């Protein structure tokens, strides 16, 4: 299935992209993160264990066990600093 993945702020800059479409076989946030980490280099580094980032599925914060279905919009971003 295909999903849309968005990156914001520092992660957008580190990854050098704001958005991509990804074909995912297993439908969880954890599986997506594993796929991204397996790209190595900056992906493995920024999404590694102990790194502080957030994931939203369809604009709602989610953890690694959260399910993903076709067409979902997943966003990965650093802790927020607005206000």
């Amino acid at each position, binding site marked *: 299935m295909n999903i849309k993945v*968005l990156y*914001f*702020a*520092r992660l*957008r800059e580190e990854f050098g992209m704001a958005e991509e479409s990804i074909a995912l076989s297993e439908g969880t946030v954890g599986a997506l993160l594993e796929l991204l980490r397996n790209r190595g280099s900056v992906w493995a580094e920024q999404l590694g264990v102990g790194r*502080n980032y957030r994931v*939203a599925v369809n*604009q709602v*914060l989610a953890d690694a066990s959260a399910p993903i279905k076709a067409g979902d*919009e997943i*966003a990965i*971003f*650093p*802790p*927020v*600093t*607005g*206000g």
Partner: protein
Amino acid sequence: MKITVQETDFDAATEISELCANNSRIGAIASFIGLVRDNSDGDPVTAMTLEHYPAMSARVLRDIVEQAMQRWQIGDVTVIHRTGKLALCDQIVFVAVAAAHRHDAFLACEFIMDFLKTAAPFWKKEQTAQGERWVEPRATDEDARRSWLDSSDISAR
């Protein structure tokens, strides 16, 4: 309820007068304005860029305001958050809460700011003479958010 995420500046007095228009039960308006500050833990800040997640930011702000409305006796609420390029001393965020009584207005206003700071998807990048840097989250903001979860009394902290 008015929730706006915008690049343009806002006028606090206009927002406040719209908030209490046509409601003579409103006796108190507590409001907050956040400004671009030279916080100088490091190099002086000269400007700032605010990025957000457009599909999510207004939605999270609305959730936060709805929580406040369930928790306190408040009337209307306005939240404005700016994005894009901002200069030193520019207005970043505005929260105004109308209520019959001032204590509810004060608590709800601070609650909204504390959750906005820790849950709404906005990110600040500061410009300094030494270049740009993403602002790091502050532990005290997370402590402020937590303090509302601990409070057993619904009306106080």
